């Protein structure tokens, strides 16, 4: 499905010592019922090195989506410091592309218009953006559906379109909030492998939130395991599996080993 990324080659990598995301001592509370406050997250330290693929796995309700919203700049932490490419992170940035759990495509726009949304918002040159959007749709096998409304597409195709939109403005950092969570297992695996290939071709930095351990291992260089609320990082795994990853990767004994270790930590079965 993934064609060569002609014309979409990565921008020259920035200085390697500046992390894409550097989060220190960040925590978040939400107002609960009757004036109480719910401790959702942290304190957490998180470093996403430039050019790497980092995943966070954890049980539902552990605050991992809150972590992504903080990293995206959609919410502010109660404590701690957050840096994005060496500058304080206090608002969303066009350097960051997000794929949400639901596709969040506008039903009143065509697939192409949806993919072009960032170009409209950021007032990018029209013709170049259109060309890039069509090339992204081509790479994800959606070229024939450019003029369709998203509601005509299957769940997997909608999420591909959402990925195209996130990549349109050529973001340095891609945030993925359980992007395949709403899809069936077969589509999920297919899309994970596609994303893995796409990520490697484009050479970007990515941060994935998921509850699917296999998906996290398959895609990532590092997998962080979160504890139940208040979410803290409980373990940090280096995923030393060879790239490019493919449909055979989950059969490697190292993959199964990592999966078992991560499961043990999530279910608290480590000796």
């Amino acid at each position, binding site marked *: 499905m993934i064609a060569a990324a002609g014309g979409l080659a990565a921008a020259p990598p920035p200085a390697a010592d500046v992390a894409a995301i550097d989060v220190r001592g960040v925590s978040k509370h939400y107002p609960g019922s009757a004036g109480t406050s719910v401790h959702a997250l942290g304190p957490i330290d998180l470093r996403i090195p430039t050019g790497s693929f980092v995943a966070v796995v954890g049980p539902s309700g552990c605050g991992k989506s809150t972590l992504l919203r903080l990293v995206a700049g959609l919410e502010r932490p109660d404590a701690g410091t957050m840096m994005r490419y060496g500058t304080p992170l206090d608002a*969303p940035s066009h350097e*960051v592309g997000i794929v949400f759990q639901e596709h969040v495509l506008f039903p009143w726009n065509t697939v192409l218009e949806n993919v072009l949304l960032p170009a409209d918002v950021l007032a990018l040159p029209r013709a170049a953006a259109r060309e890039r959007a069509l090339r992204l749709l081509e790479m994800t096998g959606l070229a024939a559906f450019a003029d369709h409304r998203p509601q005509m597409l299957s769940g997997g195709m909608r999420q591909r379109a959402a990925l195209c939109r996130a990549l349109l403005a050529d973001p340095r950092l891609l945030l993925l909030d359980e992007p395949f969570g709403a899809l069936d297992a077969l589509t999920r695996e297919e899309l994970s492998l596609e994303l893995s290939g796409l990520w490697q071709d484009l050479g970007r930095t990515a941060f994935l939130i998921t509850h699917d351990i296999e998906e996290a291992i398959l895609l990532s260089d590092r997998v962080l395991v979160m504890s139940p609320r208040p979410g803290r990082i409980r373990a940090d795994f280096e995923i030393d599996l060879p790239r490019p990853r493919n449909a055979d990767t989950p059969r490697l004994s190292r993959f199964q080993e990592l999966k078992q270790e991560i499961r043990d930590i999530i279910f608290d079965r480590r000796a």
Partner: protein
Amino acid sequence: MSAPFSSRLAGRATIPAVYLALLIAWELSVRFFAVPAWILPAPSEIGRTALQWAPELALNSLVTLRETLVGFLLAIALSLPLAVLIALNTTARRLLYPILLGLQSVPKVAVAPLIILWLGLSEWPKIVIVILVCFFPILVNLIAGLEAAPRTMLDLMRSLGASQHMIFRRLRIPVALPHFFTGCKVAVTFAVIGSVIGEFVAAQEGLGYLILISTSQSQTPLAFAAIALLTLLSIALFHGIEWIERRVVDWTP
């Protein structure tokens, strides 16, 4: 497989057949009980009178249609900026909403004579009454629609750094459109009633005026014909808006 032609035809014909049966029952009972035409005319009598008075009915229908449409369109023009203001600004909401709700709660029939007193005998007092009768459903639905944008979509726009203006144009307006049309469909049937209220109080033309003078002269079949035309006008306007809605809001199933 689609159903055979004959059974589809039968399905389509059922509802008109019921209406026709009701009309025939009306016709027969009026004849059987010999009800005088000035109390309840038979459908055939109404039809005959309508043909006889066709030019007058057409002229007065046009007057009522014009008052209704001008008032309705002005109500939309007034509701649009008010809804935007109320949806976006909490101070404006606290200031304006009670006033508008109060205006809506005043019985329009009760203030109609005052409006005629202030504005005279032209078409304008009727138009003002139409505006008063139909602005509220448009406004309330429009406000609800402008506030109906899902949080996930707002997050998406915010994550792109979109301005309020951009969020409005690309997200809030399309989300509001189906709500707006719902308000318009309710309002347009009210608008016809508004015109008739105005014409009842003081007028020299219009279907309301025609009903008033024909009943006062025991010309009941003519009054019935005018009422039938008002009903048809209301239904036609409703379907007209639905037709526009289907072309504008073409993304809902």
